[in-house]
């Protein structure tokens, strides 16, 4: 029987491949093998299952994934310590899918989960540990997504602080720092969407400068067509859109759509922005993309969720 170290190294290697290809078959095979071989630890089997569910979550309805992570975390908590690496991320993913499910009360539940997670990680590690840093950024992002009065401003403040902390501690050229920068830039754009013309331009300019740089860095690190690069590119396109450069935004979004594979980005995200970018240039095409955004989001999000309502609102704004 292979040792735990061997199995773990194999899992890490396979997980890199599956994260790139989205193909869960190898992980399914590994999971079955590990489960049917007596002697493997509960931690190892849980870790394989966790990697497998991470890939499966990309392609199934958010509500189903939320239930799966809920169940995984409950089962894991019985057998594994709270600082088990897979348990840490499984709890984060449970909170993330609860947030994304969008049922009444979900967003508040997700905020509570992230608050608990941040507190726990501060106790287990320290306030400066990168794992605590991740929980802090996730909490800020979830407050932003709740979007009650004052939430966006709070999220902006928390994320700016987090981005500066990472620059200071790890340097500006680390992907770990880039993540905080991108989430911060996205928050600026959400604020810009509601601001008056002058403020909008300032916020969008700041977000565009930040994401242009992140996009170059991610292209260099991951290459075109990688999920991380596409995320930066789509946020950059959003910034261009708010700067009034709709045609440039369309060009960026078309590039995203040319290489975007299933599950790589939030469903309907590129179509939603394309519809907005095309509304004055080509209203017919804008409507097509808006309808497509609704269709794609409805495969992942429940009726009444914020994501679906946002796309439906755009469809009605664009008319028939």
């Amino acid at each position, binding site marked *: 029987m292979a040792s735990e*170290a061997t199995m773990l190294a194999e899992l890490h*290697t396979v997980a890199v*491949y599956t994260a790139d290809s989205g193909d869960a078959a*190898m992980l399914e095979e590994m999971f079955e093998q590990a489960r049917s071989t007596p002697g493997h630890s509960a931690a190892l089997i849980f870790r394989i299952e966790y990697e497998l569910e991470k890939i499966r979550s990309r392609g199934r309805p958010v509500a189903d994934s939320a239930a799966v992570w809920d169940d995984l975390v409950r089962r894991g908590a019985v057998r594994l310590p709270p600082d088990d690496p897979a348990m840490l991320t499984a709890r984060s993913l449970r909170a993330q899918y609860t947030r994304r499910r969008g049922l009444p009360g979900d967003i508040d539940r997700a905020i509570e989960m992230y608050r608990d997670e941040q507190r726990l990680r501060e106790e287990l590690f320290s306030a400066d540990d990168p794992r605590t840093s991740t929980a802090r950024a996730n909490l800020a992002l979830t407050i932003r997504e709740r979007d009650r009065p004052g939430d966006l401003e709070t999220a902006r403040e928390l994320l700016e602080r987090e981005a500066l902390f990472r620059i200071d501690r790890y340097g500006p050229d680390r992907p*770990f720092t880039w993540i905080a920068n991108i989430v911060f830039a996205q928050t600026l754009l959400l604020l810009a969407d509601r601001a008056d013309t002058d403020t909008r331009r300032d916020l969008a300019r700041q977000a565009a400068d930040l994401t242009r740089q992140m996009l170059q860095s991610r292209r260099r690190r991951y290459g075109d067509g990688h999920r991380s690069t596409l995320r930066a590119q789509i946020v950059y396109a959003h910034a261009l859109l708010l700067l009034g450069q709709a045609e440039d935004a369309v060009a960026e979004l078309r590039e995203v759509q040319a290489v975007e594979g299933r599950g790589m980005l939030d469903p309907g995200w590129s179509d939603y922005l394309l519809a907005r970018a095309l509304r004055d240039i080509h209203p017919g095409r804008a409507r097509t993309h808006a309808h497509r955004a609704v269709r794609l989001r409805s495969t992942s999000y429940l009726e009444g969720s914020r994501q679906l309502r946002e796309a439906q609102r755009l469809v009605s704004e664009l008319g028939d």
Partner: protein
Amino acid sequence: MVHLVLYLKQTPISNWQKRLGTPAKRLEYYETLTALLRETDAAAQSRPQRQRIVEEVGRQSASTLYAALRKLPLVDAIDQSATRSRLEQGDIVDRLLAETQIWSYHDHRLGWMNGLSRMRAESTRMAATTLLQTVALWAAAEPALASSRPTIPPLSAAQDLCLVVEHHLPFDDAVALLERVITEATGPLGISPDAVVDAVYDELMRPYSRPETVRDAFGRIRSSLRDIVHVLDRMSEEEIAAALPSDVSLDTIRRLAKGA
């Protein structure tokens, strides 16, 4: 990547390990050194003295340690390089440390190769990044052994890296790159092997970015391109237009296939 794995199983250090089999006397020293290092304050990064190791193994004199490492010496499995000279000129504990790291890393290496064997796509970049991840995982699991001075990585991993990037990376450069991996893996971001790879990624890409590496990569896909051109030459213009990506011309593919 079954083919790559076949070659990885034949590296000089792989063959050296096979010839060693299960060397009971060496293993005693490997295990003792590992245990002593684990007891040592990791921040001190110091290594135990020869005499201490010998005593822990239960021997009176160091001659058994010399005798154990003399048979099939590791340096014979390493080409001429600064790393080899360092080992030759170093003391017996340096050599024991180098062997112990290879032994300790072995299970991780097996797992990495098993993972590569499962992959259907051939990607040397993926093989290289997962190798760095595996070394990072090992270093995080064995921080005392990985970061004891003088820091060297498991030399089997350095040979693997040279093979993966197809000999465009000198052995000493592979050793230096893996030393950086270990430094990162035993630092604050070591909890994430991905973050470790991110930190050294530009260095990893340097040998890939050389003109001869790119030429070799084209060389490998040329016969496939020739097959595609052969088929395209039998198709109508409409069929060609439908078959090719919108901004790629048949002429471009033909020139690449010919090696322009």
